[in-house]
């Protein structure tokens, strides 16, 4: 078996069995924090990979994609309290709700390209922030509080770990599928020139909106699990621009419009963030370094890690997924 298939499969097997070290605390110690970091990485991989569908292939840079994360989290949180079930049963509902919301938002905002689209995505967060801060049905600014799950502390992260792992695999597969399908080809044609794509017989509006709905659906699903993990849903946690900025930065760092790019970017960014947090601690400096990293990446490696390596012909085969 060549390294292109074997390395991802071995990594996957390690990831599936990794949490089992929690059963042997005498040998490995308590690794809850490592588990947290890993599921945090999966959570961001879901977001970056689904962002990549519309942002990377479609060329529609959205800096407000956490709006859909928030919608998914609120749907899962609200109905899980109302029906008394765990948000895990509501993942699909959250995804569909975010997708429907994304459908209507996409119908409006995808009419424009470029600066107007970016601005409308920022405005979307601001609108939702104002609405959710004052919507008493879903708790206003204090949001919804969810119960903890009944597992003991060592194992309490297991459902989220596997939930995000499965979701991340599905999203990465979806990303790969879009990259190699006719649908993705049409999407990439649209990102270059909409009018010429329409002349070539592509149903531009259908392709754009479908890609947008697809990307919002997975983010909504992630929102449901993240709500259960945090045990609260609150506007000032979900609707901050830093989340969207992180997503955009991770994809650009890894390489826009590639399948492996979002994954590589996410892992490197989270490692970088951990380093800053452990050495400097302060959160304001975190924003400063995130911005600095974004500027430096854009100025010197606009194609990202995967893109730059590919252009030089030095991309390892196991990352070359198209």
């Amino acid at each position: 078996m060549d390294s292109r298939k074997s390395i991802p499969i071995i990594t996957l097997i390690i990831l599936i069995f990794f949490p089992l070290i929690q059963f042997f605390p005498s040998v490995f110690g308590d690794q809850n924090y490592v588990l947290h970091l890993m599921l945090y990485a999966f959570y961001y991989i879901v977001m970056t990979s689904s962002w990549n569908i519309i942002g990377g292939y479609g060329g529609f840079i959205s800096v407000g994609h956490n709006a859909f994360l928030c919608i998914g989290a609120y749907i899962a949180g609200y109905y899980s309290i109302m029906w008394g079930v765990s948000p895990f049963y509501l993942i699909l509902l959250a995804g569909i709700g975010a997708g429907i919301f994304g459908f209507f938002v996409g119908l409006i905002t995808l009419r424009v390209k470029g600066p107007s689209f970016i601005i409308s995505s920022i405005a979307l967060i601001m609108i939702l922030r104002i609405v959710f801060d004052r919507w008493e049905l879903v708790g206003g600014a204090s949001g919804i509080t969810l119960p903890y799950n009944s597992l003991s502390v060592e194992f309490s992260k297991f459902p989220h770990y596997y939930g995000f792992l499965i979701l991340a695999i599905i999203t990465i597969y979806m990303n790969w599928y879009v990259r190699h399908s006719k649908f993705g080809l049409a999407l990439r044609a649209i990102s270059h020139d909409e009018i010429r794509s329409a002349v070539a017989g592509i149903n531009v509006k259908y392709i754009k909106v479908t890609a947008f709905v697809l990307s919002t659906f997975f983010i909504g699903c992630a929102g449901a699990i993240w709500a259960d993990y945090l045990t609260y849903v609150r506007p000032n946690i979900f609707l901050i621009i830093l989340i969207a900025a992180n997503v955009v930065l991770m994809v650009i760092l890894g390489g826009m419009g590639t399948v492996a790019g979002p994954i590589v970017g996410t892992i490197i960014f989270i490692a970088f963030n951990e380093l800053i947090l452990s050495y400097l601690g302060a959160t304001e400096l975190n924003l400063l370094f995130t911005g600095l990293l974004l500027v430096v990446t854009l100025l010197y490696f606009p194609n990202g890690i995967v893109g730059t390596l590919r252009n030089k012909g030095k991309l390892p085969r196991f990352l070359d997924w198209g």
Partner: protein
Amino acid sequence: MFIIQTIILGLCLGFVYALMATGLTLIFGVMRIVNLAHPIFILVGAFVAYYLFVLYGIDPIIAIPLCAAVTALLGAITYKLVFEKDAGAQTYSEMTVLLTFGTAMVLDGTLSYFFKNTQRITSPPYATDAIFLGELFLPTAQLYSGLISVGLIIALGLFLKFSKLGIAIRATSLSRVNAELVGIDVKFVCLFSFILGCALAGAAGSLVSFVFSFFPAKHWEWIAILMSLVVLGGMGSILGVVISAAILTVIASLVGAFIAPAWSTLVFFVALFLMLLIKPHGMFGKYLE
């Protein structure tokens, strides 16, 4: 009477918003850069005005040139460090927007690290004063800031209309290639209009410092508001921005007065979405890719 008063107050605020947005639309018109870092330059101006007032007792209105000079210098440095490479590009590119986004994050992080996210406002004597005209009650802070904004916008308009450099700026924003053909130094025009835009941001910041209370993270909200104004005005059109700012701020203050203050900022964003729905390329602008 109450309605007339709300409209007048709305207009005053609208002109302040218009001044905040003119620099943005000027930079977009010439360089095709959507400068998401513009609101943080306004905040830098506000901080300069605040500290000049607190430490040396300099009135924010007198401090306008100083604030403008500081942000212009900062703008020149940013331009040299970040945008010079992209300034040569004829068309708009997504990457430059993200560059400005990163710049905004860097400046925001620096400001909040040094000054912390606490509410600040300068309080010169006229900030709490008011003029009574019959039954009309006009707070002087809003009135002065509105009038000064109108003055600065008119000065900018005259400069663009009649001075040689202004004509060069307008020519460059119409067509970069043709401007180069007739011998305009496009690179210099780009640098100059970026610095001019940043100086306008600093001047606006000085006015903002006694009209709104401010803190470093506030600029994200301003980005959305100012960008809505710019998009509504038709990217790159200064007159369009002034008109849309005046109309929308009046509506926003009517909403704030008759429904609830909290909903008033929603007007800008809803207007943006409505416009994307009806006329995707701006009320007053031409089609720009």
